């Protein structure tokens, strides 16, 4: 094992030495490590003085963890430049070919680059955090407890791994440093949004949620590393010289995969769609299992968390709610607001949102959205039970008629997203990353157009014209 890892250290060591000889990398890093904590400390002091006037102790308590997160993050952003040019920069300087011609395995080269890409910003981040903690130790500010410090350090590590691994994926797939830098916004913007979410979580102070965030970011970072290795090809680094979006080629590749050689719609359904459905079948089984788990979680969460609220509610409030549930809906009004096209578009939009979320997170967020959708069913079930209303008749009358098509459509669509995510992180021999993604998008489109859309259309018609009538009869 040590012998296998030796080349990784070798590649990383050379890069590291190179970086520490480059003042353009060192200078901003030193400035950020030394100056930013001082600035942050000054900002904290001013905030403390200001908030003390209003006795806003809660915000003061959360200020230090927030500052630590920001201080840890800044050196990573600068080091992103180093990671972004790790492969494509060497290609531009002409130094990539001798190292690619050497007897190193792809993963050794990749991990060598990744290691140095992550190590440098992390060292800078840890130093910066340490410097800040030393500075605030003599002040009125409260240093976070050990568990939160561990969370913050892990979060900083996860940010660095996430950004650097994404930057290296971009570096491998880009044909010039300029293109890689332009594509960096695909790393910086999502991470900036993520940081905002994490900042909210820090101020909220829910430790459990923060642990989930740490785990989520780590999982996506690891998946990105997996994607990078799966699609790392020496050939791609040398075979592509021009930054050009070849739209005709993109369209041709997508279309030929979508059509799959079918001569007619019947042929397409019989062969092309059947073939891709067979491929996503394991994913369908998984999303069915996930549906069971999500429904149970939704039910359990409502029972545990909402029953307390109901117990505290006054009998008048409860009666009012019960009356509202039992109130017969105005069918004409319902049809006006929830027409078949509206329901169809709403469900289609949800499916596309699941795809979009799945695409940027290797299906993780897509599956999460799906879990939330399915989990709602369990939640509604539990609420009805808590209100003393028998949920089964309402479920059978109000959900089942259209749900018999809508829920499987949701499951099949989500399974296609799960399949897409898994396939992206799996090596695709002889295909570039672009080719692989286009083929997978064509697969998802086949499922979407051939199965999900027709099922959702029929479900919307039933939901608009049949379900309300049945539900009304049951409620009567």
């Amino acid at each position: 094992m040590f012998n296998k890892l030796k080349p990784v250290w070798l590649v990383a060591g050379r890069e590291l030495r190179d970086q520490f000889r480059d003042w353009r990398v060192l200078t901003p890093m030193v400035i950020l490590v030394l100056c930013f904590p001082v600035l942050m400390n000054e900002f904290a002091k001013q905030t403390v003085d200001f908030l003390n006037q209003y006795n806003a102790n809660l915000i003061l308590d959360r200020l230090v963890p927030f500052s630590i997160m920001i201080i840890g993050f800044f050196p990573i952003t600068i080091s992103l430049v180093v990671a972004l040019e790790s492969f494509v920069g060497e290609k531009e300087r002409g130094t990539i070919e001798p190292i690619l011609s050497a007897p190193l395995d792809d993963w050794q080269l990749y991990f060598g680059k990744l290691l140095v890409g992550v190590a440098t910003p992390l060292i800078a981040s840890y130093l910066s955090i340490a410097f800040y903690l030393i500075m605030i130790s003599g002040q009125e500010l409260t240093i976070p407890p050990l568990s939160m410090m561990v969370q913050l350090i892990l979060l900083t590590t996860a940010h660095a791994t996430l950004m650097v691994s994404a930057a290296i994926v971009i570096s491998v797939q880009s044909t010039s440093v300029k293109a890689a830098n332009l594509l960096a916004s695909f790393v910086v913007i999502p991470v900036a949004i993520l940081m905002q979410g994490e900042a909210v979580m820090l101020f909220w102070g829910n430790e459990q949620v923060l642990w989930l965030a740490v785990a989520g970011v780590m999982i996506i970072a690891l998946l990105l590393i997996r994607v990078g290795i799966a699609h790392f090809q020496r050939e791609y680094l040398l075979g592509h010289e021009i930054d050009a979006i070849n739209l005709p080629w993109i369209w041709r590749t997508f279309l030929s995969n979508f059509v799959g050689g079918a001569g007619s719609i019947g042929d397409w359904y019989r062969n092309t769609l059947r073939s891709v459905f067979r491929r996503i079948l394991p994913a369908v089984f998984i999303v069915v299992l996930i549906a069971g788990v999500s429904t149970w979680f939704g039910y359990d969460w409502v029972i545990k968390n909402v029953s307390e609220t109901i117990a505290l509610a006054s009998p008048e409030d409860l009666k009012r709610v019960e009356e509202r549930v039992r109130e017969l809906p105005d069918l004409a009004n319902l049809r006006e607001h929830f027409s078949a096209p509206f329901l169809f578009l709403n469900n289609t939009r949800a499916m596309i949102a699941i795809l979009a979320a799945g695409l940027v997170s290797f299906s993780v967020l897509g599956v999460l959205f799906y879990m939330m959708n399915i989990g709602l069913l369990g939640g509604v079930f539990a609420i009805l039970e808590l209100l003393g209303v028998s949920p089964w008749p309402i479920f059978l009358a109000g959900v089942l008629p259209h749900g018999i098509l809508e829920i499987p459509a949701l499951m099949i669509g989500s399974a296609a997203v799960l399949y897409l995510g898994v396939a992206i992180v799996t090596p695709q021999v002889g295909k570039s990353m672009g080719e692989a993604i286009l083929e997978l998008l064509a697969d998802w489109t086949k499922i979407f157009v051939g199965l999900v859309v027709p099922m959702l259309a029929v479900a919307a018609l039933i939901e608009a014209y049949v379900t309300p009538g049945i539900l009304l009869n049951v409620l009567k």
Partner: protein
Amino acid sequence: MIETHDLTKQFHDFVAVDGVNLTVQSGQILALLGQNGAGKTTTVRMLTALLHPSRGWARVAGYDVVKNGHDVRASVGVLTEQHGLYMRMNAIEYLDFFGQVYSLSPSTRKSRSDNLLEYFGLAEISRRRIGEYSKGMRQKLALARAMMHDPGVLLLDEPTSAMDPESARLVRDEIARLKSSKRTIVICSHNLTEVEGLADQIAIIYHGRILLQGTLEELKHKVFGVPEYEIKFAEAWDASGLKLPSGVEMLSQTATSFKVRVEAPQDSNPQILKALSATSASVMTFQEETRTLEQVYLKVMAEAKGPENVQ
């Protein structure tokens, strides 16, 4: 040894290398000639297991370039089109790094590095940053890197480009020495004089296809036909009465010279000289008509580009 069969590389719609068949034995040098973009570098990259062939196969040092890419890379020394030097390192660090990449022991790395730096005249500046080196020095260092692990196969892209005549000579001598030590060498070059002096086999590539392949003599024979000789006299002499051996055709005649086409020079030339010495002709020179590799190359390329280019 290098063997390829129907070696083809296609990038989307573009065929960079098309059905190349090569055999280079140990102790032989093959020169790949062709315009920029003809497919030489792509061929070399396939032989280094950097690019996978779209069709056909290649074996380098006994290893298949697709199945045994790692072994191929370990057996090959490559001098790339660009030097590929790390400018912030010095020459010793650079060679030591690649020595480690090729799993050489510290003592081997040191001795090889010292020898190569000494041989290429880089020892004195070996502790200076590579960024400070001249173009020629960089080329020599890149060549030293390719030879650092003492590979059985060398793939050299423009080995003497940017070098001064003295250094170029040094490199040519080294390549000749490597050839004599039973290494297989492939050179991509635009320096045809250099190729003439070094190569055992020459292949001319155009648009990814080998147009012509063989020894220099075979190439000349294929392009220009049988060799022609000019015999010049010190004084005017009428050669019309001279009895020429079979397989020798008189082409032209002046008062002080005549030209013949000789199908089998090794048999016929001594007979011509013998016949002349039996006469009163005062032979001044007996010389083959000059047909350089450059002429061969230019003619082949002109023909490949179309009849309008043939002069």
